[in-house]
């Protein structure tokens, strides 16, 4: 049977190769005349003539072994060991220009500005790379950039979708704030897992609000992003090719058996009171309930919560009960609706729905029951056997008889070895393009780490340094392994797992967006991007910001289909994304060629204006453009090519247009789209 499967796989592969061949051949036939153009040159470069970079490498005396590999810290020791064993040589260290751009994009999610590039290149001190790393880790953009990654992992939405919580930007704000403070990672996870209250009190509850009442995705998320485990299969059956059993999944579910996500009636009523769309007639009828809400809000919050938690002691009354779905309150709501026209009643319902605030609470008692087979609602409600909480990664962990189960779970997690490994592995993958365990959410015996000692070392460092993300990032960023050139040599071209050269990585949607802003020297967001209440709200709540700039991280997520960010593969955030789709597409190319965002950015670029109005020599204009867009000086050939075109300008108008075209071309160059 396994043989048959193998055969089948082989056949499928053969089929697909054949298909590709045919496609390439037919494309060649159709577009042979196009091939002169560099846009296509790459398609043929497999057979292309001479590879100068590898020739250069081969000519150097050290080419027989590993070269240019200063041991900066223990990371390099582990990497070097493997390279020597496998007789793979390394590419040289990257230039200052390459390092600068790479570090900015990796740490801050954006290219350096022209001024920042000039400053760094002019710095003659020997420790300037280390100094830059420290500066970037402390910058505001660090939090913005890494909050995008965490948004993908936690499926952060800013949409105003009350049924899914995530309260209009408050989740983003919480993530950015935690990252800005460099909140120790164990604390970060504990705060998410043990959060209670409404998002107005504690925005970490969005971790639960995101999935409303269901904890299935909560368990999947915890397993996936905190423990690098794909547990979701075990929801319905034992995992087909891993050790996980259905009881593992539901043992995890049981940690949340007492956790309730429900309406926060007081906060909801206070919001409804402010709603402009509430009809006047309804406002009058609701007045006593608003008053009551204000009184309740004034009472000690904790007291209210404990009342609610114990099964609704204070909940018999008015509108609050209605929102909690309780008898007396529901009747009060019906009474109010009766005295309104059906249309108006509907509008009131909508206002309540749109302004609903939810909260997360733990009941003191209650058990999780195994869901039973079948679709019948009755069966679902009755449920199966009681399941006790168990921690799948260490079944010896015993849950204390008293106290919060969620607190117990958080403690089990952060003290587990794999917890630390998963996070350092994620940080490594972000900077190196590949996890030591890869994919980063697939830790299991049959998918071992490529460098187990390195993984251990980083995990040890992480735990020893109180789960300090910056400490790990600093180690990686300062290593020679990170600071290697991305240009392969003849010898290491095919290496993908030993870090002999840096991996080229596509800029994410947000990195592209923000880098276009910096490259063109623009002060405001790209045209054609959504603005409005939600973006405004995020912006206003995240302070202090660079004046006037609207970064991608200030915009609502997920971006609407067809917008710049969406076109460049910003995920829908419906499922956990551990690795962005980094493939290109025709719509992406069209967006860069003809899109409103990029063309307005170029047309209105302050840098274009500055250069067009200046008396700078064409060579200097070329340099300024290369520094601003590609974060480097042009080569002599590039400079003279640009200067020749600039010299053709008949008048001031044409000069300006040529500068625009140069900038446009640099933004469209493939170099711009990659972290190299």
């Amino acid at each position, binding site marked *: 049977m396994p043989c048959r*499967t193998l055969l*089948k*796989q082989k056949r*499928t*592969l053969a089929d697909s190769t054949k298909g590709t061949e045919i496609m390439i051949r*037919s494309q060649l036939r*159709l*577009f042979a*005349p*196009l091939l*002169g*153009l*560099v*846009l*296509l040159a*790459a*398609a043929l*470069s497999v057979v292309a003539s001479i590879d100068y*970079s590898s020739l250069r490498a081969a000519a150097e005396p050290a080419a027989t072994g590993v070269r240019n590999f200063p041991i900066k810290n223990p990371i390099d020791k582990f990497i070097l060991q493997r390279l020597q064993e496998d007789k793979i040589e390394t590419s040289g260290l990257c230039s200052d220009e390459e390092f600068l751009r790479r570090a900015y994009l990796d740490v801050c999610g954006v290219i350096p500005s022209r001024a920042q590039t000039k400053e760094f290149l002019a710095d003659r001190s020997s420790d300037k790379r280390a100094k830059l790393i420290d500066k970037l880790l402390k910058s505001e953009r660090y939090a913005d950039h890494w909050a995008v990654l965490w948004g993908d992992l936690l499926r952060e939405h800013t949409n105003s979708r009350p049924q899914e919580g995530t309260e209009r930007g408050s989740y983003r704000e919480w993530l950015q704030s935690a990252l800005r403070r460099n909140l120790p990672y164990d604390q970060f996870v504990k705060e998410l897992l043990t959060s209670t209250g409404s998002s107005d009190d504690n925005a970490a509850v969005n971790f639960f609000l995101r999935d409303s009442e269901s904890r299935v995705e909560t368990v*999947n998320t915890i397993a*996936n992003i905190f423990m690098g485990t794909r547990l*979701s299969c075990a929801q319905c059956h034992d995992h087909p090719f891993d050790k996980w059993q259905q009881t593992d999944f539901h043992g995890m579910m049981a940690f949340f058996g007492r956790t309730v996500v429900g309406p926060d009636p007081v906060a909801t009523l206070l919001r409804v009171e402010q709603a402009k769309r509430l009809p006047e007639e309804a406002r009058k009828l609701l007045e006593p309930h608003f008053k009551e809400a204000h009184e309740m809000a004034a009472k000690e919050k904790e007291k209210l919560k404990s009342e609610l938690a114990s099964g609704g002691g204070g909940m018999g009354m008015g509108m609050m009960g209605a929102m909690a779905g309780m008898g007396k309150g529901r009747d009060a709501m019906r009474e109010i609706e009766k005295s309104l026209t059906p249309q108006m009643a*509907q509008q009131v319902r909508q206002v309540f729905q749109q302004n609903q605030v939810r909260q997360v609470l733990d009941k003191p008692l209650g058990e999780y029951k195994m869901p039973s087979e079948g*679709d019948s609602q009755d069966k679902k409600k009755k449920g199966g056997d009681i399941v006790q909480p168990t921690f799948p990664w260490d079944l010896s962990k015993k849950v204390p008889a008293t106290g919060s189960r969620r607190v117990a779970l958080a403690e089990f997690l952060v003290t587990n070895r794999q917890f630390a490994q998963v996070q350092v592995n994620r940080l490594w993958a972000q900077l190196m393009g590949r996890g030591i365990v890869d994919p980063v959410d697939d830790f299991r015996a049959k998918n071992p780490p490529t460098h187990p000692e390195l993984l251990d070392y980083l995990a040890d460092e992480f735990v020893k340094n109180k789960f300090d993300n910056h400490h790990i990032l600093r180690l990686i960023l300062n290593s020679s392994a990170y600071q290697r050139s*991305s*240009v392969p040599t003849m010898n290491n071209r095919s290496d993908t797992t030993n870090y002999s050269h840096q991996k*080229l990585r596509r800029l994410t949607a947000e990195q592209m967006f923000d880098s276009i802003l910096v490259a063109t020297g623009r002060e405001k967001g790209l045209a054609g991007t959504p603005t409005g209440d939600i973006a405004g709200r995020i912006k206003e709540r995240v302070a202090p910001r660079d004046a006037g700039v609207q970064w991608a991280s200030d915009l609502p997520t997920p971006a*609407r*289909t*067809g917008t710049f960010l969406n076109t460049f593969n910003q995920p829908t955030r419906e*499922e*956990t994304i551990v690795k962005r*789709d980094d*493939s*290109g*597409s*025709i*719509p*992406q*190319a069209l967006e860069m*060629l*003809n*899109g409103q965002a990029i063309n307005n950015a170029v047309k209105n670029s302050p840098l274009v204006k500055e250069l067009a109005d200046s008396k700078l020599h064409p060579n200097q204009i070329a340099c300024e453009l290369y520094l601003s867009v590609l974060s480097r000086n042009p*080569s002599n050939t*590039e400079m003279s*090519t*640009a200067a020749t*075109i600039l010299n053709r300008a008949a008048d001031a108008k044409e000069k300006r*247009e*040529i500068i625009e*075209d*140069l900038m*446009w*071309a640099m933004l*469209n*160059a*493939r*170099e711009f789209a*990659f972290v*190299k």
Partner: protein
Amino acid sequence: MSKPMPTGTSRGTIDCDGKSGLSRRNLFKAGAFSFLGLSVADLMRATVLAGPNDVARCDSVILVWLSGGPSHIDTWDPKPGQPTGGPFKPIDTSATGIQLPEHMPTIARNMKHCALIRSMTSKEGSHERATYEMHTGFKPLGSISHPSMGSLIVQQKGKRNEEIPAYVAIGGNQAVGAGFLGSQFAPYYIGDINNATRNLDLPGIDDERFKRRVDILKAVDKEFSSQNRDPEVKEYGTFYRDAVKLMYARSREAFDINRDDRELPYIKNYGDNSFGRSMVMARRLVEKGVRFVEVNLGGWDTHQNAFTAIENNLQRLDPALGNLIEDLHARGLLKRTMVICTGEFGRTPKINAQDGRDHYPKCFSTFIAGGGIKEGYVHGCSDAGGTEPKDNPVTIGDLHATMCEALGIDGTKENMTPQGRPIRIVDKGTPVKALLA
């Protein structure tokens, strides 16, 4: 701001018979093309469609997606006289024995060309999950992103026209994409039907200037692309090539719906609104050889005041879908074009306190016509109340298998995910032979 385009009859003809298809604009474009080294002869060659395939009954699919989950009882499966039958009166159609609600007169008129499945059944009752399943044939998993049927069809059947994208999605904001097949097979998305050529038109510059830009780009790109020959870098270049190709392709006029006066009477018939225009474009795209077009019509999540909402929706759906069928038939295209109209699930027979119906995957209906589907036929039926399939239940997998059968695709074939996991084109399901003519 962009260069004004000649309109109306001076445009090239739709069919491609060589010389007569070349208008002034096309000639000019061909001239502009020469800077990319492509001759007029190449242009002509690029529009020739691939010939029909022997195994296949069908070349293209139009999926009319009713997002939100349309009520089967108030659309394809009327239950007159039942307590939960709703207020709509049934009318006879051109197909013997098939009745539809009174608000579907145009579809009723063309029902003799179409079929219905009244015994669809599934288990997913949440919008996102059910939408995913109806598009991909798989339940969503945290770990695998499955390709939609459109992507699979393009991957399996290839392009019929090299010039334009083979998979186009119009409207909606939750298009299910290519999943693990990669963005090469993702839908080309048109968000605003009235601005469908948004990034195909030059941004307020002329062809000369665009040529200069591309020349500069060539120079700027040289060093990097010669140093880095990663497949990703190469691939990124090919998307640029295909993008420029599309900008200057003759076939792109399929997108230029608002610049073609010949379509005015059709737009009037289909409905002069976003959806009507989208359906006209769907027909134009199929005429140009696009494999899969998905058109979205939202507003079917009718938890409250369902009957007013559904009546409104039908006023848009009926003329557009009815006239699309009539139009495809008149042009001889219906034979090899499958039109499927469905949503993610049906709605409860029970009418709730807000005069609405809630999510109901257990029993619903799907409209299907053309591309080898039997004409004037109903497959399966629901019980008297529309609560469950009474005979011949059809699963989503069965529907996908039927589509594959008509297209000549072996649904049992497997694709490999990047993680090396084999995934069948159709997970579980057998073609409904009775539906095929």
